[in-house]
């Protein structure tokens, strides 16, 4: 508030408990105006970052999204496993699809199916869905998280940028066995070999 010329012009300094009398739509304090300007400019920065990242950034949640009947999705997953299975691990099929292809992972109470074996630096379209309730796809330790909703196919273009053994944690509550829901994604080096440490730890038959 700039110093007014006359007492009659002074705005009363009232608290928020008091009814302001008369016309209170008067110019704001100078400091309020300054802060308003700064805050608004900052909101514009926030504003710009999301479209900018869609344009220039490497991580977006757009995906190829469609509705899918749970049974139809399950059939695609089974076909996918039949086509590219290379082994089994703890009773789960290990599937190694060719780089560039569509790959599938099904969340259901309480497992992720199947185990994916991908190649570092190659692009895949990862289709995620559920045949029962909501699940949460959480890739550890990369920390990529997506919501899995039954009846919806979330197709995400992914490029693994590191080789190794990754866990898939369910991070949406899906019933009492929620904590048992642990899957796997294996990523090989560009030449198809597993990095030393991970290769020893994993027995793929």
């Amino acid at each position, binding site marked *: 508030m700039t110093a007014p010329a006359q007492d009659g012009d002074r705005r009363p300094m009232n608290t928020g408990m008091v009814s302001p009398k008369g016309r209170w739509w008067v110019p704001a304090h100078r400091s309020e105006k300054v802060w308003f300007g700064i805050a608004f400019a900052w909101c514009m920065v926030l504003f710009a970052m999301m479209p900018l990242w869609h344009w220039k950034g490497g*991580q977006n949640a757009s995906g190829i999204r469609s509705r899918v009947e749970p049974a139809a999705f399950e059939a695609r997953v089974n076909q996918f496993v039949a086509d590219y299975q290379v082994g089994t691990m703890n009773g789960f099929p290990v599937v190694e699809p060719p780089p560039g292809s569509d790959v599938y992972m099904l969340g259901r109470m309480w497992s992720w199916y199947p185990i994916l074996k991908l190649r570092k630096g190659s692009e895949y379209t990862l289709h995620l869905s559920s045949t029962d309730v909501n699940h949460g796809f959480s890739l550890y330790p990369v920390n990529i*998280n997506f919501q899995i*909703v039954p009846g919806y196919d979330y197709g995400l273009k*992914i490029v693994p940028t590191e080789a190794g053994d990754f866990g898939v944690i369910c991070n949406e509550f899906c019933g009492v066995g929620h904590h048992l829901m642990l899957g796997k994604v294996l990523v090989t080096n560009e030449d198809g070999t597993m990095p030393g440490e991970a290769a020893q730890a994993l027995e793929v038959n």
Partner: protein
Amino acid sequence: MATVLETPQGGSGPGEVFRTCEVTGLKLHRPAERLIKANAVAATVALLIGGVSAILILLTRWQAVHLLDPVMFYRVLTAHGLTMLIFFIIFFEMAVLYFAAGPMLNSRIAAPKLGWFNFGLMTLGATLCEWMIWTGKADVLMTSYIPLRADPLYYLGIIFFAVGALLVCFQFFATLVIAKREKTYEGSLPLVTYGAVAAAIIAVITLLHGAATYIPTFFWSIGWMSVDPQVYRMLWWALGHSSQQINVAAMVAIWYLLGALTVGSVVLSEKISRTAFVLYILFISMASAHHLLVDPGFSSSWKVVNTSYFMYMAVLASMLHGFTVPAGVEIGQRLRGASQGLFGWVKRAPWGDPGFSSLALSIVVFGFVGGITGVTIGTEQINIVVHNTLRVPGHFHATVVSGTTMAFMGLTYYLIPLIFRKKVAFWRLAQIQPYMFAGGMLVFSIFMSFSGGFGVPRRHWDIGFTGAPFEQAFHPAVDALMGIMALGGLVAALGGGLYILITVWSVFFGKPFTEADRVPGAKGLPQGITRPPRPVTVADEANLPTGRLGQAPGTMILVAVFLAAFAIYYFANWKLLSFVWKIG
């Protein structure tokens, strides 16, 4: 304090009486007072149930203790979420609505009997839900995402509660009409009431979404119709997040109220503060879209438009309040002589008044932790590394617990003498309670967020994955982080327990508060009551600084620090995101 005017006032029915509060000069309508008391007591009962649940959850997620079995864990988690976020907070907000329309405007409230009907309906609904949850018929967590199914009575309970709350909002609007018509106040609504109006309007929007969610879900649960799981998520969050916006609006209104009561803080300009409340009403409902940022059912443009182009206008509103509230305190303090240097007003603030310390802690933790993390993790792409990890509860415990709940607690230390007319029991404990609660919660939120940064999931019974087909171990730091988180949580729980002890003891066994108790330094009474801030005059404006930073230079510095912290955190998260796999 109070001289009771046992005479019916004009415009009120027979038997309805007012008393005048000698501290604030407000005229209190007795039926309003009784409704405020009933709703505050119900809120405290809910807080107790939610608080005990919180401790059980904490002691389970702390892997070294791992107290509950999975069935009980998810059951208690369901109870904790619903009891705290819905029952505790909304009961308290009902008390605030009765207060903001009745006593604040010196008015009688509309249809007190309807108020009791509403209270009964809400209590019935809440009881029904608790019964279903604790008997194991609703192990669906608070969000109850379809197709997880609870007993139909659970959904019915929520519907009853919501209808009751909706009717209280209409009763609130009717009271505003009465006050206007009976000319119980002059000029415009006080800012605090204006903020409560914003909260009530958002509540109506929220509760209508609640109806659109739970009525079809109820019919789905008895097999009459189908509900799409993705549509459910969208509608549920239009309820679930918007209800947190009722809290924000109510909390900010309470900030203005506590500022006025404790240090006589001034409103810099009615225009800015009121415009900010209008921005909440207009834009904050869209904020619920940020729960769906990595959902398959929505396009990126839908997500970006709703979370950015609309929500940031609500963020702007919060940043405005985040300036005007502390600046109002600063100028209020300076007008009354505490004007030395940049921060003399902080130093000379009544830190031993739990109303004031709650206000300050609520603003700082809500803004610096809750606000900054919330805006950042609500960014479409950043949400990829955040969704459903512990970073989410890490954020909202800083907003809704150390922000909203802390503000409610601070107000309670004034409600006990002014409405319940009792002295605050265990005064020394009451003075340290806000520090324990906010301090514990601060540690809890920060370390929970750090754990979430390692990908630790929220709502998860066992991150040791016992019995899973593979072995999975989290980063070794996680154990230590979650241990510290648990300690912070326990301190906060102790602070919450103290609050319940103090309020229950004061109300039921406390010493009555009389005018003779109002001496400076008296135990059991906040400083704003024993030594209310003196009214300011035009002459006091000579105390205000005239430098380049304006009349509130200290606040200018504080908000600059805030903005710097915000920018660092925000861009650090983009950097973090850039390290993960290419995805799109």
